[in-house]
């Protein structure tokens, strides 16, 4: 999979310097999201809800074999067809195969990070199929040929002026059009797309094993339309998205939305069991559910990282993250960004491919407080760092320096000497040109050591 993760440090620096409007837009949007999340958590016994949700997902993940089999059986009994994809290639082939068999010429899509992950759109387009993203934010990004920068608000890095300019150019709207006017213009284009599409493709927030229900949360209604109007609906669902029972879904629908946007529930929730089978139902003739692994079983097999599979993709950790707020998601270089990306990407892609994301955190711990399923993100970051050190994926100078510190710290006289020298030398101009400290001193005034150490002052006596 092509990622641009490895140059995170350089690209985050460029983004902060060259795109100040991104930082302003992302900070504004995420601060607002997080305030709503806090308020919504405050309205319920959020602590108890989060512990419950954590336990349900832990149960699910330690019984996933049983629940996958149950979900498959239920879906088939409902008249839906189930497919299994080990990786991105298989996921794309399955969808392309369906499109070919069913003579699909045009596809409408609901927002789905998994389809971004398996790079589905380019594959469909290469096969001559028209693909239209119907979430307003995704539609904007499709026109701009940009990937989403946030799990829930894909275009939060864009300001109104940028959308005004884009729509004026592409849809002929007034350059000063207000959001209502712009949304109306997009609605017109997308309404035609819904009515003409042969296939609707979505992800799935949850898949209830008990009933074979694919649950989708949204606010615009585009997913409801995507799963209703075209004659075929295909849902790509990560295998970790299962829930045991319908009663679990009731809690997860509410908790996820409270965490994501602070709403009690999304304006629209679609519960898809299968194709239209009853009189009066004008829904799709065929419903296909593609169960996708694509690295998830690697994560499940990992001693620590498996806990990240509890993730419900609410984006709460992105919203509260002070690191994410400075750059937005693009700097991270792959689909999943922010705190959850930094612990999930190493599992899905392999640690080598995901470096240096485990180090793209100050370990402030705010993400854990926000996470609705209590993923111990700071601990997982440390676990990945540990693995990175052991596999030699960090600069050797860093490892050597820290080993030396440890060696000195168990020999007090040596430590005192090294500390004194280090501090004094560190304050010199020469030291500031050392590669490790160059960036630090480029961005900050140098620290000023105390004239005498505390140790010296203590020896002299403190009055």
């Amino acid at each position, binding site marked *: 999979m092509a990622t641009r993760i490895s140059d995170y440090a350089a690209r985050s620096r460029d983004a902060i310097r060259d795109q100040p409007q991104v930082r302003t837009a992302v*900070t504004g949007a995420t601060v607002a999201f997080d305030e709503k999340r806090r308020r919504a958590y405050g309205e319920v016994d959020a602590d108890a809800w989060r512990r419950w949700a954590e336990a349900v997902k832990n149960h699910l993940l330690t019984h996933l074999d049983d629940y996958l089999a149950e979900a498959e059986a239920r879906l088939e009994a409902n008249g839906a067809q189930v497919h299994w994809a080990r990786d991105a290639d298989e996921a794309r082939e399955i969808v392309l195969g369906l499109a070919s068999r069913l003579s699909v010429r045009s596809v409408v899509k609901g927002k789905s990070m998994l389809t971004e992950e398996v790079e589905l759109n380019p594959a469909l387009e290469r096969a001559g199929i028209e693909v239209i993203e119907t979430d307003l934010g995704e539609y904007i990004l499709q026109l701009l040929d940009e990937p989403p920068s946030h799990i829930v608000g894909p275009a939060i890095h864009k300001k109104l002026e940028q959308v005004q300019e884009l729509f004026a150019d592409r849809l002929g709207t007034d350059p000063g059009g207000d959001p209502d006017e712009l949304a109306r213009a997009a609605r017109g284009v997308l309404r035609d797309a819904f009515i003409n599409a042969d296939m609707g493709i979505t992800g799935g927030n949850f898949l209830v094993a008990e009933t074979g229900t694919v649950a989708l949360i949204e606010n615009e209604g585009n997913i409801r339309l995507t799963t209703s109007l075209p004659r075929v609906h295909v849902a790509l669902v990560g295998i970790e998205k299962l829930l045991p029972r319908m009663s679990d879904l009731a809690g997860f629908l509410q908790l996820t939305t409270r965490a994501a946007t602070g709403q009690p529930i999304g304006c629209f929730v679609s519960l898809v069991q299968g194709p239209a089978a009853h009189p009066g139902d004008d829904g799709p003739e065929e419903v296909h559910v593609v169960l996708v692994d694509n690295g998830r079983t690697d994560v499940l097999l990992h001693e620590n990282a498996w806990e990240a599979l509890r993730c419900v993709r609410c984006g709460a950790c992105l919203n509260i993250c002070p690191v994410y707020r400075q750059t937005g998601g693009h700097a991270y270089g792959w689909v999943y960004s922010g705190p959850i990306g930094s612990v999930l990407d190493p599992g899905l892609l392999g640690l080598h491919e995901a470096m240096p994301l485990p180090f793209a955190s100050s370990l*402030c711990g705010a993400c854990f407080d926000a996470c609705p399923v209590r993923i111990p993100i700071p601990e997982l970051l440390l676990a990945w760092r540990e693995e990175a050190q052991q596999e030699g994926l960090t600069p050797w100078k860093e490892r050597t320096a820290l080993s030396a510190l440890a060696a000195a710290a168990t020999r007090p006289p040596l430590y005192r000497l090294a500390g004194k020298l280090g501090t004094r030398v560190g304050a010199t101009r020469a030291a500031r040109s050392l590669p490790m400290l160059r960036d630090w001193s480029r961005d*900050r005034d140098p620290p000023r050591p105390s004239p005498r150490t505390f140790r010296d002052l203590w020896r002299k006596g403190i009055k």
Partner: protein
Amino acid sequence: MKVALFVTCLADHYFADAAVDAVRLLRHLGCEVTFPDAQTCCGQPAYNAGMSREAARMAHHTIDTFADCEAVVLPSGSCATMVKKFYPRIAADDRAVQAAALADKTFELGEFIVRRLGVTRLGDGLAGRRVAVHQGCHALRELRLEREPAVLLEGAGAEVVPWEAQDECCGFGGLFSVKMSAVSAAMADRKLDTLPRVDWVVSGDGGCMLHLDGRSGARGCGVEFVHLATALWRGVDGHPD
């Protein structure tokens, strides 16, 4: 009460005056302060870098150094967290009991004064001072010292001014500020840009202060950073300048 001061690397070398103020403050509150000479680094830099074996060696050294002390106080929230929360995770099995014992008797300075000594009034030496509090993330989210610094500052007469980004990380994060310097500096900017008009920014974490002060200096913000120990001692002492 007999209190051992664990001064920490940064306070020893960069905030020696604040450490001296911590000693004076503790003595003023009736404690006998000792300074075990064999103390070194708590090991947090190695721990945060993912080198827990190296960090464990340092933890073992610290555990031995402070084994006989009645209470251990650190003028640093993050180093206190290392001892209280992370030593029990990384200590070898045969040190687990001692690690837990050290964790129980170790306190961040403000935590010690409020929770262990039960003191919240220190005098009125800070009357008329407007201050903002920067909480280190470990003190805030691991030790849950949500109110302690503000309570003490108010208990010394200061007016603690609300700060929009009060609970947000300043971007220091040790190695993070070196490896991801630009993001780290932008995080400091968010703190500085939302800072209300105050006389001092007070913090119990030297690392955050070095980073914020350095960034403030580079941008010409002219903000004065004061360590919590110094602020509180001035509160007692009545000579805020």
